[in-house]
C-alpha cells in the first residue's frame, strides 16, 4: 500500500527534533487555550501565526494543527471541574462532567475525557489519512438543502436533550432560537431586535452566553451554600476511573469517534454540533437514560471523544481540496498560504511531505497530549481543594478576561454577567440550560440553510427532495420524530416500573 510508505516518510519528517518540538509547543499552547474559558482554538491559532513566519511550512502547520486539536483536549477541564465550558465544543460536557465532580468522580471524568480524546483523535486521523481525497468531494455535495436536513435530524435528536419535562425544555429551545435571531439578518441585511444598539449588530455570541449561564450561574448558586461546605479531599484512588466506568465508556468513545468524524466533515459549527449530537445519541441508546444529567460517565466520554474526532473530519475538505469549512481550518489555510503553499485539489499529490508529515505529527501530537493531560488531571483536581472564597473570584476574573480578550468588547462582558444572572434564576426554577445554548447555536444555522435553499430554488420546496442526501436525511428525521411522539404519548414505562417496585 502506498499509504504505509507515505506514512513512514511522514514520520521521518515529523520525528525530526525540530518538528517534535514544534508539535509539543502547539499541543501545550492548545491545551492552555482549551483550558482558558473564552479563548478558543481560532484565537489561539490566529495569535501564533506571526510566530511561524520564521519556520518552514511543514513546521508551521504541525504547530498550528497542534493548537487546534490540543484545544479540544483542554476544553473539558473547566467544564468538568467548575461547570465553565473551556471552549464551545465542551458546553455539553458541563452537564454530566460537573455532576461527576460533585460526586467526587471529577478525576475519573477528566481521565476518561483525555482517553476518549486520544482514541477519537487517532481514529479520525486514520479516517483522514485513508479517506481524505474521497470524502473531500463528498463534503462539497452538502449545500443548503443538505445542511438543513442534517440540522433537522440533529434538532430532533436533541429534543430529548433536557432532563426535565417537555414543557420546561421547549420554552428554553424557543428562547435560544429567539436570541439567535438577534442581529443583522445575513440574508437581507436588516437588523432584527437590535433597537439601535450597535453591539448587537453581530448578534449575541454564544461563548459569553454559555460561560455566563453555566459558569457564573454556578458561582452564584454555590455562594449560597459555600460557607458551610466541606472542601472535598481527593484521594489518589478517585483520580482513576473504576472498571465499571471504563467499561461504560467504550461504547460512547467508539460511537463518538464515528459521529465526530462524520459531522466534522460537514461545513459549519462541526465541533459544537458533534459534541451535542454524541450526547443525545448516548442518552438515546443508554439503558440508564433517565440518569443522564446526574453524572453519567457516558455523558462525558461521548461528547469529548466526538469533538476531538471532529478535528480530523474538519481537516478533510481543507487538506483534500483546499476548501476550509470552518473558521479554524480557514486560518490554518491562510497560515500555509503565507509560506507559499496554497492548498488545493492537488495539495496531497504535490506536497506529500507536508500532508504526510502533518498526519504523522498528529499521531505524535495525540500521544504528547495524552502524556501531557493525564498527569495534569492530578494537578487540576487539586484546584478543588482551593477554598471557594479564593477559587470563585479567580474563576470570575478568568471568565471576564477570557471574554474581553477575544473581542475587546465591554458589551460582551455585560452579556456574560447578564447570562450569569439568567443562568442562576433558571437553575433555581429547574430549567435546563443545555437545550437553550444549543438552540442559540443551531437556530440561526437552521434558519439560514432553509432560507438559502428557498432563495436558490425561487421558493420551491422541491429542492429538499430533489437531492438524494437531503431526502434520505429528512426521511430519517420524520421517522425519528414519529417514534419520539409515540414514546412520549405512551404512558411512561419507567413510572410503571417504579410503581410496580413500590
Amino acid at each position, binding site marked *: 500500500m502506498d499509504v504505509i510508505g507515505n506514512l513512514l516518510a511522514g514520520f521521518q519528517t515529523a520525528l525530526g527534533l525540530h518538528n517534535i518540538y514544534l508539535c509539543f509547543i502547539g499541543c501545550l499552547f492548545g491545551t492552555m487555550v482549551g483550558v482558558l474559558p473564552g479563548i478558543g482554538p481560532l484565537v489561539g491559532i490566529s495569535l501564533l501565526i506571526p510566530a511561524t513566519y520564521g519556520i518552514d511550512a511543514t513546521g508551521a502547520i504541525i504547530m498550528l494543527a497542534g493548537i487546534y486539536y490540543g484545544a479540544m483536549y483542554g476544553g473539558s477541564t473547566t467544564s468538568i471541574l467548575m461547570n465553565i465550558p473551556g471552549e464551545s465544543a465542551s458546553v455539553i460536557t458541563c452537564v454530566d462532567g460537573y455532576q461527576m465532580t460533585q460526586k467526587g468522580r471529577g478525576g475519573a471524568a477528566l481521565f476518561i475525557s483525555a482517553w476518549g480524546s486520544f482514541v477519537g483523535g487517532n481514529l479520525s486521523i486514520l479516517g483522514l489519512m485513508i479517506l481524505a481525497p474521497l470524502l473531500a468531494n463528498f463534503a*462539497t455535495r452538502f449545500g443548503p438543502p443538505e445542511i438543513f436536513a442534517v440540522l433537522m435530524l440533529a434538532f430532533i435528536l436533541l429534543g430529548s436533550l433536557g432532563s426535565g419535562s417537555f414543557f420546561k425544555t421547549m420554552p428554553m429551545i424557543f428562547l435560544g432560537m429567539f436570541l439567535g435571531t438577534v442581529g443583522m439578518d445575513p440574508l437581507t441585511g436588516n437588523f432584527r431586535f437590535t433597537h439601535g444598539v450597535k453591539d448587537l*449588530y453581530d448578534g449575541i455570541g454564544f461563548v459569553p452566553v454559555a460561560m455566563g449561564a453555566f459558569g457564573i450561574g454556578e458561582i452564584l448558586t454555590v455562594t449560597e451554600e459555600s460557607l458551610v461546605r466541606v472542601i472535598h479531599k481527593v484521594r489518589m484512588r478517585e483520580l482513576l476511573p473504576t472498571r465499571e466506568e471504563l467499561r461504560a465508556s467504550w461504547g460512547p468513545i467508539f460511537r463518538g469517534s464515528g459521529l465526530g468524524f462524520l459531522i466534522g466533515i460537514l461545513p459549519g459549527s462541526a465541533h459544537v454540533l458533534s459534541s451535542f449530537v454524541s450526547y443525545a445519541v448516548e442518552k438515546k441508546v443508554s439503558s440508564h437514560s433517565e440518569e443522564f444529567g446526574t453524572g453519567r460517565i457516558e455523558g462525558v466520554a461521548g461528547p469529548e471523544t466526538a469533538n476531538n474526532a471532529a478535528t480530523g473530519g474538519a481537516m478533510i475538505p481543507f487538506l483534500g481540496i*483546499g*476548501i476550509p469549512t470552518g473558521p479554524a481550518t480557514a486560518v490554518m489555510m491562510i497560515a500555509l498560504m503565507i509560506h507559499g503553499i496554497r492548498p488545493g485539489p492537488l495539495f496531497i499529490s504535490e506536497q506529500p511531505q507536508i500532508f504526510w508529515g502533518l498526519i504523522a505529527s498528529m499521531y505524535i501530537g495525540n500521544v504528547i497530549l495524552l502524556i501531557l493531560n493525564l498527569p495534569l488531571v492530578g494537578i487540576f483536581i487539586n484546584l478543588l481543594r482551593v477554598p471557594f472564597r479564593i477559587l470563585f473570584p479567580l474563576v470570575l476574573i478568568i471568565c471576564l478576561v477570557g471574554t474581553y480578550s*477575544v473581542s475587546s468588547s465591554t458589551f460582551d462582558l455585560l452579556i456574560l454577567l447578564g447570562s450569569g444572572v439568567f443562568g442562576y434564576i433558571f437553575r433555581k426554577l429547574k430549567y435546563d440550560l443545555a437545550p437553550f445554548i444549543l438552540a442559540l447555536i443551531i437556530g440561526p444555522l437552521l434558519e439560514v440553510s432553509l432560507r438559502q435553499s428557498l432563495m436558490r430554488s425561487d421558493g420551491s420546496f422541491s429542492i429538499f427532495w430533489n437531492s438524494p442526501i437531503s431526502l434520505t436525511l429528512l426521511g430519517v428525521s420524520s421517522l425519528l420524530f414519529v417514534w419520539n411522539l409515540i414514546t412520549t404519548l405512551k404512558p411512561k414505562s419507567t413510572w410503571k416500573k417504579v410503581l410496580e417496585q413500590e
Partner: protein
Amino acid sequence: MLKFLYFDNTCLKREVAMKSFRIFGGIICFLLGLAALAGGAEYPARPITLINPMPPGGTLDLQSRAFASVAEKIIGQPMVVVNKSGATGMVGGVAGATAAPDGYTLTVGSVNLTNAIEWEIANGRKPPFTRHDFISICSFTLSPTLLIVNPDSPWKTLGDFLKDAKARPGQIAFCSGGLYGMSHLPIEIFARAAGLKFRHVPYSGGGPCISAVVGKHVDFAMQYPPTSLPLIRGGKLKALAVVGKERLKSAPDIPCMKDAGIDAEYYGWVGIMAPKKTPQPIVEKLREVAKKVCSDKSFIDLIEKPGDEVNLLIGDEFAKYWDQESQKIGKVQAELAKEAAKK
C-alpha cells in the same frame, strides 16, 4: 569644591548644600524636560496600537499582522494589533476614528469599511464615522476578484456566460461571502455594467461560497485570487474573467473584463489610517515607514506568497482612490437599498 563643603560653619555648610542641591535639582529637571521634548520629536516613543476592526483570523487580520511585524522593526517600537470587532467593522472603526490623534492608535482599513459606511448612507442612516474622520497613511494591496464557475458548467468563455445570462435574466444564481460585502458588490457592479440580472444566495464567508460553486449549489461567484487560483489549477473551478482593467500577473491567461469591453472594476484593498487631527510630522513619518515596509522583502513575501500583490498607494493617492471608490460603491448600494426596501 568638596573642600568647600567641609567648612567648619555648619550653618553655612547646610546653606551651601541646599543651594547646590537646588542647582543640581534644577539641572536634572532641565535635562528631563529636554529629554521629554526630544521624545516628542522622536515619535514613536512608545508602542503603537493598530486596531483591526475585524475578528482574528482571515486575510485582513493576517495582512495587518504582517504589516505590524515589519513596521515595528523599522520604527523601533512594538506595533500591537488589537482586534476590536463587531457590527461589520463599525465598532473598531469608531474606536479608531475617535482615538487620541497622537499617532499611537492607528486603524487597519479595508474595502469592507467603504461597503459598510456606504450601506448606512444608502439606507438614510448617519454612519458613526466616514473616511473623512481619518487621514490616509497608505493602502498596500489592491486585488481584483475572479469570476469563477464550475468546470462542468456549459460556459467555456465569458462570451458564453454573457449570452446565456442575457437569455435567462434572473435565472442564474450566484453566491457571495456576505451580503453587501466584498464578494457581493463586484457582482452587482458587473451586472450593472453588462446589463444583466442574477439571483443571489448569500453565504457566510468566502470558504463556504467557493464550496458552493465547487459543489454546484450555485452557478457562479466572484472571489479573490489567493483562495481561488489553487482550485482553478486543480480543476475544481474555472475562471472566466478577472473583474478589472488588467490581467493578473500570476495568471495572465485569464481575460479581464476590459478585454470583453465591460467596464467593471472592484478591488479589495487593505490600508492604514490615523485619526483626523494627527499632527502632520507624525503623518509624514508614518507614510515614510509605510513606504519602507512595502519595499521590505519579508513584507512582500508575506503578502505575495499567498497570491496577493503589494500595490502601494501613499497618502493622498490613497485618499483619492478611496473617494472614487466610495462614490462608485455608494451608487450601487443606493440602488440595492431601494431594491431591498421594495421587498
